[in-house]
């Protein structure tokens, strides 16, 4: 009688649900714990160090960040990284839509093309960056964040956008395009009026990949950036010099800004979904 409940399949499936739910929550906590730790330490007291104990709770390090020269040191790299990330996002979107479109048409050697594209994900970043730097020196090209770093980062962000767009086109019904063609729309008009609006969620996804992967890229930037550093390089250099909770304040601030950006994109996507989703009569 005591274990009769376990014989009931509804009870068992409820139990499984709770079990898996708990596991998910534990995993999320595990994933976020390092960030939370840094976030917590950024609120350390004025005499606090970079490790526990915090020696009180204050906004001291955010104040320091606001007025201190550290911020001035970080401002130019921040601008560079943002511009670089935006450029990578746009390039990734354009190239990944074009290459995924090409894959739909099945050209000669398309499977080779697919694997070569994925090489950008698989090749170790530090080697790609180093090899690229050597090659550029050989070709006598000056290294700079907005030329060589941009090129090497696109080779990293593009495959992610490409895979995203392949997945989108995989579920895409090409008969709506054919309907547009038979109704008198040229290929370009069909793309602009029919294809692009329908794949827009994927396009935004590819752009987000391009931006976020470029923004915090370290290994590929390390050898290719030249004298003017990007944000991850500047942060790393700062860590080498002196470590104060200020660096945690920077990390927390950028994380909060990223979260806000993602939230904005998600709500934009959600609004778009709503406008194309079925409505009740």
């Amino acid at each position, binding site marked *: 009688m005591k274990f009769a409940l376990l014989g009931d399949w509804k009870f068992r499936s409820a139990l499984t649900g709770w079990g898996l739910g708990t596991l998910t929550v534990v995993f999320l906590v595990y994933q976020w714990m390092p960030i939370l730790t840094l976030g917590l330490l950024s609120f350390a007291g004025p005499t606090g160090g970079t490790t526990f104990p915090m020696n009180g709770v204050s906004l001291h390090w955010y104040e320091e960040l606001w007025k201190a020269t550290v911020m001035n040191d970080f401002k130019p790299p921040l601008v560079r990284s943002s511009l670089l990330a935006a450029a990578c996002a746009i390039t990734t979107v354009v190239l990944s839509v074009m290459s995924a479109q090409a894959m739909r048409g099945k050209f000669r050697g398309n499977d080779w093309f697919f694997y070569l594209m994925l090489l950008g994900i698989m090749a170790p970043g530090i080697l790609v960056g180093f090899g690229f730097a050597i090659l550029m020196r050989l070709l006598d090209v000056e290294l700079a964040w907005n030329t060589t770093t941009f090129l090497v980062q696109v080779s990293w962000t593009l495959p992610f956008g490409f895979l995203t767009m392949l997945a989108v086109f995989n579920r895409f019904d090409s008969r709506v395009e054919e309907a547009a063609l*038979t109704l008198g729309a040229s*290929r370009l008009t069909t793309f602009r009026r*029919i294809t692009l609006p329908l794949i827009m969620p994927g396009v935004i996804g590819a752009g987000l990949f391009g931006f976020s992967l470029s923004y915090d890229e370290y290994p590929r930037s390390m050898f290719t950036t030249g004298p003017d550093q990007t944000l991850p390089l500047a942060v790393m250099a700062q860590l080498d010099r002196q470590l104060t909770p200020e660096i945690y304040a920077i990390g927390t601030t950028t994380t909060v800004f990223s979260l806000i950006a993602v939230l904005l994109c998600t709500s934009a996507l959600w609004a778009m979904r709503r406008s194309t989703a*079925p409505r009740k*009569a």
Partner: protein
Amino acid sequence: MDALAPRTAGVAPSLPVAKPQLDLELRDIRKKYGDFTAVDGVSLKVPKGQFVCLLGPSGCGKTTTLRCIAGLEDPDDGGVLIGGKEVTRDPPWQRDIAMMFQDFALFPHMTVAKNVAFGLEMLKQPKARIAERVAQVLASFEISALADRKPGSLSGGQRQRVALARAMITEPRLLLLDEPIGALDYSLRETVMLELKLLQQRTGISFIWVTHDQNEAFSLGDLVVVMNHARIEQQGTPEDILQRPATAFVASFIQGNNVFRGTVLERAGGNVRIETAAGVFIVPCLGASPEIGATATFSVRAENISDTVSERHPNRLTAHCTAVEYFGAVRRHIFERADGEVLKVDHFGAQAARIAPGQSVLLGWQVEDTVLHQGIPG
């Protein structure tokens, strides 16, 4: 329904045209995908304002033929002429056509009104004119109430109307329909078929309708084109194809035929005698008569076989009844022939069955109800 007046309305009567213009002409179209031949030498002439049904089993090449007409596929060889104009290498958007797809392919991100307006927008007509036309056409298809809805919220029948309105608004010369009612509920199909037939007659636009359903083809088509293995087996009126199947394939594909296969014994007048495993039969020979000793096939329709055999029925055989099926107006008896093949016999009328399963019956039919097929059977 004025919104979709006949194409010719408003055109001043011109000099009598010497050669009647064809809406569509296919000249020996061929299309291969790797080693697979999808269309193998299809030729077709469609006079003005015809309802044409391309009928055949799946994979016979009827949809590929339609897509070649639309310009969505490039034929490897042959020519496509629409309204007398060669368009074989023209892209779809430069052809005077519209197409309706099986699942309707409505634009999911646009409202019904925007979907319907699309064709006119592509013609770069002024906005006010487009709005006026869209309102007219929505009204004539009785979907005005849906104008601001998105396709995702519509029922199958509503989507079908929207797709039709979207295709018809530019009054194309040809409307291509790929299994256009296959996605509808069975109960809706008959109504929609009748509406489409009336619409075609009223507008005078030629419809090219692809289907695997012979009921659709025979009840709608002015011209029925039966395809198999990438080729046209027979084209003609529904009566032609029902009464005079040209090949063994057509006879077996169309319901209600009994197909026999045998060897030609001798020629006698306009007839040949053919020996089959079920007996020897006399078959009228209208075209070139086959060689003696050659293999030949012929058929007889199920309703032309009688169980009250007289001297009018020289073609006779005895068969064993295995089942009786009741279809309302028709009672179909399934027999087993001496050679083990199935023989179908239809009797009309609601009277009780005279033949019961288990009986062996002498059956017969007239010589002129027997149809000799062309070609050497495969």
